[in-house]
Protein backbone atom coordinates (compact mmCIF):
# COMPACT_ATOMS: atom_id res chain seq x y z
CA UNK A 1 0.00 0.00 0.00
CA UNK A 2 2.88 2.32 0.86
CA UNK A 3 4.43 1.69 -2.53
CA UNK A 4 1.21 2.52 -4.33
CA UNK A 5 0.97 5.73 -2.34
CA UNK A 6 4.56 6.56 -3.29
CA UNK A 7 3.78 5.94 -6.95
CA UNK A 8 0.73 8.18 -6.69
CA UNK A 9 2.71 10.93 -5.00
CA UNK A 10 5.30 10.76 -7.78
CA UNK A 11 2.71 11.04 -10.55
CA UNK A 12 2.13 14.13 -12.61
CA UNK A 13 -1.53 14.28 -11.68
CA UNK A 14 -0.78 14.42 -7.93
CA UNK A 15 1.77 17.19 -8.37
CA UNK A 16 -0.08 19.24 -10.96
CA UNK A 17 -0.71 22.73 -9.67
CA UNK A 18 -3.47 24.97 -10.97
CA UNK A 19 -1.09 27.48 -12.63
CA UNK A 20 0.64 24.60 -14.39
CA UNK A 21 -2.70 23.32 -15.59
CA UNK A 22 -3.60 26.76 -16.94
CA UNK A 23 -0.24 26.97 -18.72
CA UNK A 24 -0.80 23.55 -20.29
CA UNK A 25 -4.16 24.75 -21.59
CA UNK A 26 -2.52 27.90 -22.98
CA UNK A 27 0.19 25.85 -24.69
CA UNK A 28 -2.42 23.54 -26.17
CA UNK A 29 -4.23 26.56 -27.58
CA UNK A 30 -0.92 27.76 -29.09
CA UNK A 31 -0.64 24.37 -30.77
CA UNK A 32 -4.23 24.78 -31.97
CA UNK A 33 -3.42 28.19 -33.45
CA UNK A 34 -0.35 26.76 -35.17
CA UNK A 35 -1.93 23.60 -36.54
CA UNK A 36 -5.51 24.57 -37.32
CA UNK A 37 -5.25 28.32 -37.89
CA UNK A 38 -1.76 28.13 -39.47
CA UNK A 39 -0.44 31.00 -37.29
CA UNK A 40 3.33 31.05 -37.97
CA UNK A 41 3.32 27.27 -37.46
CA UNK A 42 7.09 26.98 -37.93
CA UNK A 43 7.58 28.74 -34.62
CA UNK A 44 4.37 28.45 -32.68
CA UNK A 45 4.39 24.67 -32.92
CA UNK A 46 7.80 24.17 -31.27
CA UNK A 47 7.05 27.02 -28.84
CA UNK A 48 3.73 25.50 -27.82
CA UNK A 49 5.23 22.06 -27.46
CA UNK A 50 8.21 23.42 -25.54
CA UNK A 51 5.73 25.09 -23.22
CA UNK A 52 3.97 21.78 -22.65
CA UNK A 53 7.27 20.11 -21.79
CA UNK A 54 8.24 22.96 -19.48
CA UNK A 55 5.03 22.56 -17.49
CA UNK A 56 5.20 18.84 -16.87
CA UNK A 57 5.04 18.62 -13.07
CA UNK A 58 8.15 17.31 -11.30
CA UNK A 59 10.07 16.78 -14.57
CA UNK A 60 11.70 20.20 -14.28
CA UNK A 61 12.76 20.30 -17.92
CA UNK A 62 12.98 24.08 -17.92
CA UNK A 63 14.92 24.33 -14.66
CA UNK A 64 18.64 24.65 -14.14
CA UNK A 65 20.45 22.21 -11.86
CA UNK A 66 20.28 24.68 -8.98
CA UNK A 67 16.57 25.44 -9.39
CA UNK A 68 15.99 21.72 -9.66
CA UNK A 69 17.69 21.10 -6.32
CA UNK A 70 15.53 23.77 -4.70
CA UNK A 71 12.38 22.26 -6.18
CA UNK A 72 13.26 18.79 -4.86
CA UNK A 73 14.42 20.27 -1.51
CA UNK A 74 16.43 17.29 -0.38
CA UNK A 75 17.21 17.90 3.35
CA UNK A 76 20.89 16.93 3.16
CA UNK A 77 21.60 19.17 0.18
CA UNK A 78 19.62 22.03 1.72
CA UNK A 79 21.66 21.69 4.90
CA UNK A 80 24.83 22.30 2.88
CA UNK A 81 23.26 25.38 1.29
CA UNK A 82 22.21 26.68 4.72
CA UNK A 83 25.72 26.14 6.08
CA UNK A 84 27.13 28.06 3.14
CA UNK A 85 24.75 30.97 3.79
CA UNK A 86 25.23 30.81 7.55
CA UNK A 87 21.58 29.97 8.22
CA UNK A 88 20.16 27.48 10.72
CA UNK A 89 17.52 25.07 9.49
CA UNK A 90 15.71 24.05 12.67
CA UNK A 91 14.18 21.06 10.95
CA UNK A 92 10.63 21.38 12.28
CA UNK A 93 9.17 20.65 8.84
CA UNK A 94 10.08 20.90 5.19
CA UNK A 95 7.78 23.88 4.70
CA UNK A 96 9.30 25.78 7.62
CA UNK A 97 12.79 25.16 6.27
CA UNK A 98 11.69 26.34 2.84
CA UNK A 99 10.50 29.59 4.35
CA UNK A 100 13.92 30.15 5.87
CA UNK A 101 16.03 29.17 2.90
CA UNK A 102 14.20 30.30 -0.24
CA UNK A 103 13.87 34.03 0.58
CA UNK A 104 17.53 34.09 1.61
CA UNK A 105 18.57 32.64 -1.73
CA UNK A 106 16.23 34.93 -3.63
CA UNK A 107 17.72 38.03 -2.03
CA UNK A 108 21.25 36.75 -2.46
CA UNK A 109 23.21 39.33 -4.39
CA UNK A 110 26.79 38.10 -4.19
CA UNK A 111 27.39 36.39 -7.54
CA UNK A 112 30.36 34.41 -6.19
CA UNK A 113 28.33 32.69 -3.48
CA UNK A 114 25.50 32.05 -5.93
CA UNK A 115 27.99 30.47 -8.28
CA UNK A 116 29.28 28.29 -5.44
CA UNK A 117 25.76 27.17 -4.60
CA UNK A 118 25.23 26.26 -8.23
CA UNK A 119 28.43 24.22 -8.22
CA UNK A 120 27.21 22.47 -5.07
CA UNK A 121 23.96 21.60 -6.83
CA UNK A 122 25.88 20.06 -9.71
CA UNK A 123 28.12 18.20 -7.26
CA UNK A 124 25.03 16.81 -5.52
CA UNK A 125 24.07 15.17 -8.79
CA UNK A 126 21.50 17.59 -10.16
CA UNK A 127 21.66 18.40 -13.86
CA UNK A 128 20.19 21.15 -16.02
CA UNK A 129 16.85 20.28 -17.58
CA UNK A 130 16.83 19.66 -21.32
CA UNK A 131 14.94 22.84 -22.19
CA UNK A 132 17.16 24.84 -19.88
CA UNK A 133 20.19 23.59 -21.80
CA UNK A 134 18.56 24.53 -25.10
CA UNK A 135 17.80 27.98 -23.72
CA UNK A 136 21.36 28.53 -22.55
CA UNK A 137 22.83 27.42 -25.87
CA UNK A 138 20.44 29.10 -28.28
CA UNK A 139 19.02 32.21 -26.64
CA UNK A 140 21.13 33.16 -23.63
CA UNK A 141 24.18 33.02 -25.86
CA UNK A 142 22.35 35.10 -28.49
CA UNK A 143 23.31 32.57 -31.16
CA UNK A 144 19.96 31.33 -32.48
CA UNK A 145 18.31 34.66 -33.36
CA UNK A 146 21.51 35.70 -35.13
CA UNK A 147 21.75 32.48 -37.14
CA UNK A 148 18.12 32.91 -38.15
CA UNK A 149 18.86 36.48 -39.15
CA UNK A 150 21.64 35.19 -41.41
CA UNK A 151 19.14 32.85 -43.04
CA UNK A 152 16.66 35.72 -43.47
CA UNK A 153 19.46 37.71 -45.10
CA UNK A 154 20.10 34.83 -47.48
CA UNK A 155 16.42 34.82 -48.40
CA UNK A 156 16.11 38.57 -48.89
CA UNK A 157 16.22 40.18 -52.31
CA UNK A 158 17.21 43.83 -52.03
CA UNK A 159 16.42 44.45 -55.70
CA UNK A 160 13.20 46.46 -55.17
CA UNK A 161 14.87 48.49 -52.42
CA UNK A 162 17.90 49.29 -54.61
CA UNK A 163 15.65 50.27 -57.48
CA UNK A 164 13.91 52.82 -55.25
CA UNK A 165 16.13 53.58 -52.22
CA UNK A 166 13.76 56.22 -50.87
CA UNK A 167 11.45 53.46 -49.66
CA UNK A 168 13.97 53.12 -46.82
CA UNK A 169 12.21 56.13 -45.25
CA UNK A 170 9.03 54.09 -45.02
CA UNK A 171 10.93 51.40 -43.16
CA UNK A 172 12.17 54.10 -40.79
CA UNK A 173 8.76 55.69 -40.21
CA UNK A 174 7.13 52.39 -39.33
CA UNK A 175 9.61 51.96 -36.46
CA UNK A 176 7.74 54.71 -34.64
CA UNK A 177 5.44 51.93 -33.46
CA UNK A 178 8.34 50.53 -31.43
CA UNK A 179 9.13 53.72 -29.59
CA UNK A 180 5.53 54.80 -29.11
CA UNK A 181 4.95 51.46 -27.42
CA UNK A 182 7.94 51.97 -25.15
CA UNK A 183 6.30 55.20 -24.11
CA UNK A 184 3.00 53.38 -23.65
CA UNK A 185 4.67 50.78 -21.45
CA UNK A 186 6.36 53.32 -19.18
CA UNK A 187 3.08 55.25 -19.15
CA UNK A 188 1.22 52.19 -17.91
CA UNK A 189 3.78 51.69 -15.15
CA UNK A 190 3.55 55.37 -14.19
CA UNK A 191 -0.19 54.91 -13.80
CA UNK A 192 0.59 51.95 -11.58
CA UNK A 193 -1.35 49.44 -13.67
CA UNK A 194 1.65 47.23 -14.31
CA UNK A 195 5.27 47.45 -13.28
CA UNK A 196 7.72 47.70 -16.17
CA UNK A 197 11.17 49.20 -15.92
CA UNK A 198 12.68 50.97 -18.91
CA UNK A 199 14.52 47.86 -20.14
CA UNK A 200 11.35 45.83 -20.08
CA UNK A 201 9.46 48.63 -21.81
CA UNK A 202 12.04 48.67 -24.60
CA UNK A 203 11.87 44.90 -25.01
CA UNK A 204 8.08 45.11 -25.28
CA UNK A 205 8.28 47.92 -27.81
CA UNK A 206 10.39 45.83 -30.15
CA UNK A 207 7.32 43.66 -30.77
CA UNK A 208 6.31 46.57 -33.01
CA UNK A 209 9.35 45.78 -35.16
CA UNK A 210 7.32 42.79 -36.35
CA UNK A 211 10.48 40.78 -36.58
CA UNK A 212 10.67 37.58 -34.54
CA UNK A 213 14.44 37.07 -34.27
CA UNK A 214 15.05 40.75 -33.50
CA UNK A 215 12.40 40.69 -30.77
CA UNK A 216 13.88 37.56 -29.19
CA UNK A 217 17.40 38.94 -29.42
CA UNK A 218 16.50 42.23 -27.75
CA UNK A 219 14.35 40.56 -25.11
CA UNK A 220 17.10 38.08 -24.26
CA UNK A 221 19.47 40.98 -23.59
CA UNK A 222 17.17 43.53 -21.95
CA UNK A 223 14.43 41.51 -20.26
CA UNK A 224 14.93 37.71 -20.35
CA UNK A 225 12.12 37.25 -17.79
CA UNK A 226 9.56 38.54 -20.32
CA UNK A 227 10.94 36.61 -23.26
CA UNK A 228 8.18 34.01 -23.39
CA UNK A 229 5.36 36.52 -23.54
CA UNK A 230 7.21 38.80 -25.95
CA UNK A 231 8.03 36.00 -28.39
CA UNK A 232 4.50 34.64 -28.29
CA UNK A 233 3.04 38.13 -28.84
CA UNK A 234 5.47 38.91 -31.67
CA UNK A 235 4.82 35.72 -33.59
CA UNK A 236 1.05 35.68 -33.05
CA UNK A 237 0.66 39.28 -34.18
CA UNK A 238 2.87 38.65 -37.19
CA UNK A 239 0.39 35.97 -38.17
CA UNK A 240 -2.43 38.46 -37.58
CA UNK A 241 -0.95 41.14 -39.86
CA UNK A 242 -3.58 40.48 -42.58
CA UNK A 243 -6.29 41.26 -40.00
CA UNK A 244 -4.64 44.12 -38.10
CA UNK A 245 -3.35 46.21 -40.98
CA UNK A 246 -6.10 46.59 -43.63
CA UNK A 247 -8.61 48.55 -41.49
CA UNK A 248 -5.90 51.03 -40.46
CA UNK A 249 -4.76 51.36 -44.06
CA UNK A 250 -8.29 52.00 -45.30
CA UNK A 251 -9.01 54.62 -42.66
CA UNK A 252 -5.88 56.63 -43.43
CA UNK A 253 -6.16 56.68 -47.24
CA UNK A 254 -8.75 57.73 -49.81
CA UNK A 255 -9.88 55.42 -52.56
CA UNK A 256 -8.06 57.56 -55.14
CA UNK A 257 -4.81 57.25 -53.19
CA UNK A 258 -5.16 53.50 -52.91
CA UNK A 259 -5.60 53.26 -56.68
CA UNK A 260 -2.35 55.12 -57.48
CA UNK A 261 -0.31 53.16 -60.01
CA UNK A 262 3.42 53.24 -59.40
CA UNK A 263 5.98 53.38 -62.19
CA UNK A 264 7.85 50.22 -63.13
CA UNK A 265 11.00 49.54 -61.10
CA UNK A 266 14.29 49.75 -62.98
CA UNK A 267 16.35 46.58 -63.31
CA UNK A 268 19.13 46.35 -60.73
CA UNK A 269 22.59 45.12 -61.66
CA UNK A 270 24.29 42.27 -59.88
CA UNK A 271 27.15 44.50 -58.73
CA UNK A 272 24.79 46.80 -56.86
CA UNK A 273 23.30 43.83 -55.09
CA UNK A 274 26.73 42.55 -54.09
CA UNK A 275 27.98 45.90 -52.83
CA UNK A 276 24.81 46.82 -50.92
CA UNK A 277 25.25 44.43 -47.94
CA UNK A 278 28.88 45.54 -47.63
CA UNK A 279 27.80 49.20 -47.70
CA UNK A 280 25.21 48.55 -44.97
CA UNK A 281 27.81 46.85 -42.82
CA UNK A 282 30.29 49.71 -43.26
CA UNK A 283 27.63 52.19 -42.14
CA UNK A 284 26.80 50.01 -39.14
CA UNK A 285 30.46 49.76 -38.24
CA UNK A 286 30.83 53.54 -38.46
CA UNK A 287 27.69 54.62 -36.64
CA UNK A 288 26.02 51.87 -34.65
CA UNK A 289 28.31 49.03 -33.55
CA UNK A 290 25.65 47.74 -31.15
CA UNK A 291 23.54 46.71 -34.16
CA UNK A 292 26.52 44.89 -35.65
CA UNK A 293 25.59 41.38 -34.46
CA UNK A 294 22.12 41.53 -36.04
CA UNK A 295 22.93 43.44 -39.20
CA UNK A 296 26.32 41.78 -39.59
CA UNK A 297 24.79 38.32 -39.78
CA UNK A 298 22.02 39.66 -42.00
CA UNK A 299 24.50 41.18 -44.44
CA UNK A 300 26.62 38.02 -44.42
CA UNK A 301 23.61 35.95 -45.42
CA UNK A 302 22.70 38.43 -48.14
CA UNK A 303 26.24 38.57 -49.49
CA UNK A 304 26.36 34.77 -49.67
CA UNK A 305 23.17 34.89 -51.70
CA UNK A 306 24.08 37.69 -54.08
CA UNK A 307 27.75 36.89 -54.66
CA UNK A 308 26.66 33.69 -56.38
CA UNK A 309 29.96 31.96 -55.60
CA UNK A 310 28.90 30.16 -52.42
CA UNK A 311 25.55 28.73 -53.42
CA UNK A 312 26.04 25.79 -51.07
CA UNK A 313 26.47 28.07 -48.05
CA UNK A 314 23.58 30.27 -49.07
CA UNK A 315 21.41 27.21 -49.60
CA UNK A 316 22.31 25.84 -46.16
CA UNK A 317 21.75 29.18 -44.44
CA UNK A 318 18.26 29.63 -45.85
CA UNK A 319 17.12 26.02 -45.53
CA UNK A 320 18.80 23.42 -43.36
CA UNK A 321 20.48 25.72 -40.87
CA UNK A 322 17.54 28.04 -40.31
CA UNK A 323 15.23 25.06 -39.87
CA UNK A 324 17.46 23.35 -37.32
CA UNK A 325 17.87 26.59 -35.42
CA UNK A 326 14.13 27.25 -35.50
CA UNK A 327 13.40 23.94 -33.77
CA UNK A 328 15.71 24.67 -30.86
CA UNK A 329 14.79 28.35 -30.69
CA UNK A 330 11.12 27.40 -30.46
CA UNK A 331 11.73 24.87 -27.70
CA UNK A 332 13.91 27.35 -25.83
CA UNK A 333 11.23 30.04 -25.99
CA UNK A 334 8.77 27.42 -24.80
CA UNK A 335 10.93 26.90 -21.71
CA UNK A 336 9.99 30.44 -20.66
CA UNK A 337 6.28 29.61 -20.78
CA UNK A 338 6.23 28.57 -17.14
CA UNK A 339 3.50 29.71 -14.82
CA UNK A 340 5.45 32.03 -12.53
CA UNK A 341 6.80 33.99 -15.53
CA UNK A 342 3.78 33.91 -17.82
CA UNK A 343 0.66 34.02 -15.65
CA UNK A 344 1.06 37.63 -14.63
CA UNK A 345 -0.76 40.87 -15.27
CA UNK A 346 2.38 41.95 -17.16
CA UNK A 347 1.67 39.36 -19.85
CA UNK A 348 -1.73 40.90 -20.52
CA UNK A 349 -0.03 44.29 -20.71
CA UNK A 350 2.49 42.92 -23.20
CA UNK A 351 -0.23 41.43 -25.39
CA UNK A 352 -2.18 44.70 -25.37
CA UNK A 353 0.87 46.88 -26.01
CA UNK A 354 2.10 44.58 -28.77
CA UNK A 355 -0.99 45.04 -30.86
CA UNK A 356 -0.85 48.80 -30.30
CA UNK A 357 2.76 48.74 -31.51
CA UNK A 358 1.71 47.00 -34.73
CA UNK A 359 -1.13 49.46 -35.27
CA UNK A 360 0.97 52.58 -34.73
CA UNK A 361 3.78 51.25 -36.92
CA UNK A 362 1.33 50.59 -39.73
CA UNK A 363 -0.24 54.04 -39.36
CA UNK A 364 3.03 55.98 -39.36
CA UNK A 365 4.27 53.98 -42.35
CA UNK A 366 1.15 54.85 -44.33
CA UNK A 367 1.29 58.51 -43.27
CA UNK A 368 4.94 58.74 -44.28
CA UNK A 369 4.12 57.26 -47.68
CA UNK A 370 1.35 59.85 -48.10
CA UNK A 371 3.80 62.60 -47.28
CA UNK A 372 6.35 61.25 -49.76
CA UNK A 373 3.66 61.00 -52.41
CA UNK A 374 2.86 64.70 -51.91
CA UNK A 375 6.50 65.75 -51.99
CA UNK A 376 7.97 63.75 -54.87
CA UNK A 377 7.26 63.79 -58.57
CA UNK A 378 7.21 60.05 -58.74
CA UNK A 379 3.82 58.71 -57.60
CA UNK A 380 3.93 56.62 -54.41
CA UNK A 381 0.95 54.58 -53.34
CA UNK A 382 0.47 55.14 -49.58
CA UNK A 383 -0.44 51.49 -49.14
CA UNK A 384 3.18 50.40 -49.49
CA UNK A 385 3.99 52.36 -46.32
CA UNK A 386 2.33 49.78 -44.13
CA UNK A 387 4.85 47.20 -45.35
CA UNK A 388 7.53 49.18 -43.51
CA UNK A 389 6.74 47.30 -40.30
CA UNK A 390 8.74 44.34 -41.74
CA UNK A 391 6.90 41.01 -41.18
CA UNK A 392 8.38 39.89 -44.50
CA UNK A 393 6.66 39.03 -46.78
CA UNK A 394 3.22 39.08 -45.16
CA UNK A 395 2.98 42.88 -44.88
CA UNK A 396 3.91 43.37 -48.54
CA UNK A 397 1.22 40.90 -49.56
CA UNK A 398 -1.30 42.83 -47.49
CA UNK A 399 -0.35 46.06 -49.31
CA UNK A 400 -0.78 44.27 -52.62
CA UNK A 401 -4.16 42.86 -51.63
CA UNK A 402 -5.61 46.13 -50.39
CA UNK A 403 -4.28 47.83 -53.54
CA UNK A 404 -5.99 45.29 -55.77
CA UNK A 405 -9.30 45.98 -54.05
CA UNK A 406 -9.10 49.64 -55.11
CA UNK A 407 -7.71 48.99 -58.59
CA UNK A 408 -7.74 45.41 -59.91
CA UNK A 409 -4.95 46.21 -62.40
CA UNK A 410 -2.55 47.56 -59.79
CA UNK A 411 0.08 45.15 -58.52
CA UNK A 412 1.97 46.68 -55.61
CA UNK A 413 3.79 43.58 -54.41
CA UNK A 414 7.24 44.39 -55.79
CA UNK A 415 6.92 48.04 -54.76
CA UNK A 416 5.95 46.99 -51.25
CA UNK A 417 8.93 44.62 -50.94
CA UNK A 418 11.23 47.67 -50.82
CA UNK A 419 9.78 49.15 -47.61
CA UNK A 420 9.30 45.62 -46.32
CA UNK A 421 13.00 44.76 -46.30
CA UNK A 422 13.77 48.34 -45.27
CA UNK A 423 11.64 47.58 -42.21
CA UNK A 424 13.93 44.68 -41.33
CA UNK A 425 16.95 47.00 -41.42
CA UNK A 426 14.97 49.66 -39.55
CA UNK A 427 13.98 47.38 -36.71
CA UNK A 428 17.52 46.04 -36.42
CA UNK A 429 18.77 49.62 -36.16
CA UNK A 430 16.12 50.42 -33.57
CA UNK A 431 17.18 47.31 -31.65
CA UNK A 432 20.78 48.47 -31.80
CA UNK A 433 19.87 51.92 -30.46
CA UNK A 434 17.94 50.39 -27.56
CA UNK A 435 20.74 48.00 -26.65
CA UNK A 436 23.28 50.81 -26.84
CA UNK A 437 21.15 53.17 -24.75
CA UNK A 438 20.09 50.72 -22.07
CA UNK A 439 22.85 48.23 -21.48
Amino acid at each position, binding site marked *: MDKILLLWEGSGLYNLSLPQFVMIVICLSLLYLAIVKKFEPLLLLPIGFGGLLANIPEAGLALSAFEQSLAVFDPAVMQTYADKLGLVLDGASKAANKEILLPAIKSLEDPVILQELKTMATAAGYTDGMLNTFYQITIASGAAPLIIFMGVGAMTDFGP*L*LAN*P*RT*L*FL*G*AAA*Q*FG*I*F*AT*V*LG*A*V*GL*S*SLGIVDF*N*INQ*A*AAIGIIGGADGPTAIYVASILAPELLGAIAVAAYSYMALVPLIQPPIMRVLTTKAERAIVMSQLRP*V*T*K*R*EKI*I*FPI*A*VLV*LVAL*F*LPSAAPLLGMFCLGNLMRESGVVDRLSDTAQNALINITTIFLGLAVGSKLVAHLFLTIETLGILALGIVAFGIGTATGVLMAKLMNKMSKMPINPLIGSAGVSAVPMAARVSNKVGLEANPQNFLLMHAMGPNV*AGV*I*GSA*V*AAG*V*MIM*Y*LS
Partner: protein
Amino acid sequence: MHTTNLMTEGFNLMLMGMGFVFTFLTLLVIATTLMSKTILRFSKPEPVAKPVKPAASTKTQGKNTELIAAISAAIHLHRQRK
Protein backbone atom coordinates in the same frame (compact mmCIF):
# COMPACT_ATOMS: atom_id res chain seq x y z
CA MET B 1 9.69 61.17 -8.62
CA HIS B 2 10.48 57.66 -9.77
CA THR B 3 7.62 57.58 -12.24
CA THR B 4 8.45 60.96 -13.83
CA ASN B 5 12.03 59.71 -14.28
CA LEU B 6 10.72 56.66 -16.05
CA MET B 7 8.59 58.81 -18.35
CA THR B 8 11.47 61.13 -19.24
CA GLU B 9 13.62 58.13 -19.92
CA GLY B 10 10.95 56.77 -22.20
CA PHE B 11 10.77 60.11 -24.03
CA ASN B 12 14.54 60.26 -24.36
CA LEU B 13 14.66 56.78 -25.74
CA MET B 14 11.95 57.63 -28.24
CA LEU B 15 13.59 60.83 -29.44
CA MET B 16 17.01 59.29 -29.64
CA GLY B 17 15.73 56.08 -31.18
CA MET B 18 13.62 57.66 -33.90
CA GLY B 19 16.30 60.26 -34.55
CA PHE B 20 18.91 57.61 -34.96
CA VAL B 21 16.78 55.32 -37.11
CA PHE B 22 16.00 58.19 -39.47
CA THR B 23 19.58 59.45 -39.59
CA PHE B 24 20.92 56.01 -40.25
CA LEU B 25 18.45 55.18 -42.96
CA THR B 26 18.92 58.61 -44.57
CA LEU B 27 22.64 57.91 -44.73
CA LEU B 28 21.84 54.54 -46.20
CA VAL B 29 19.62 56.15 -48.85
CA ILE B 30 22.43 58.53 -49.78
CA ALA B 31 25.05 55.79 -49.77
CA THR B 32 22.87 53.48 -51.86
CA THR B 33 22.01 56.15 -54.40
CA LEU B 34 25.66 57.16 -54.78
CA MET B 35 26.74 53.56 -55.07
CA SER B 36 24.15 52.78 -57.74
CA LYS B 37 25.07 55.87 -59.74
CA THR B 38 28.78 55.10 -59.62
CA ILE B 39 28.28 51.49 -60.59
CA LEU B 40 25.91 52.29 -63.43
CA ARG B 41 28.34 54.88 -64.78
CA PHE B 42 31.41 52.65 -64.75
CA SER B 43 29.84 49.46 -65.98
CA LYS B 44 28.23 50.54 -69.24
CA PRO B 45 29.44 47.57 -71.25
CA GLU B 46 27.04 45.04 -69.69
CA PRO B 47 29.14 42.96 -67.32
CA VAL B 48 30.09 39.39 -66.61
CA ALA B 49 27.46 36.91 -67.74
CA LYS B 50 27.93 37.21 -71.52
CA PRO B 51 31.58 36.21 -72.06
CA VAL B 52 30.95 33.05 -70.08
CA LYS B 53 28.60 31.58 -72.65
CA PRO B 54 30.85 31.63 -75.74
CA ALA B 55 33.68 30.22 -73.66
CA ALA B 56 31.46 27.38 -72.59
CA SER B 57 30.29 26.72 -76.13
CA THR B 58 33.82 26.65 -77.55
CA LYS B 59 34.66 24.17 -74.88
CA THR B 60 31.84 21.90 -75.94
CA GLN B 61 32.83 22.44 -79.57
CA GLY B 62 36.34 21.34 -78.68
CA LYS B 63 34.94 18.29 -76.99
CA ASN B 64 32.84 17.58 -80.07
CA THR B 65 35.80 17.65 -82.44
CA GLU B 66 37.71 15.37 -80.11
CA LEU B 67 34.76 13.06 -79.98
CA ILE B 68 34.37 13.07 -83.77
CA ALA B 69 38.06 12.38 -84.16
CA ALA B 70 37.88 9.48 -81.75
CA ILE B 71 34.82 8.02 -83.45
CA SER B 72 36.28 8.31 -86.95
CA ALA B 73 39.54 6.76 -85.73
CA ALA B 74 37.56 3.88 -84.31
CA ILE B 75 35.62 3.44 -87.53
CA HIS B 76 38.84 3.63 -89.48
CA LEU B 77 40.38 0.90 -87.29
CA HIS B 78 37.27 -1.23 -87.63
CA ARG B 79 37.33 -0.98 -91.41
CA GLN B 80 41.04 -1.78 -91.52
CA ARG B 81 40.47 -4.96 -89.52
CA LYS B 82 37.92 -6.06 -92.07
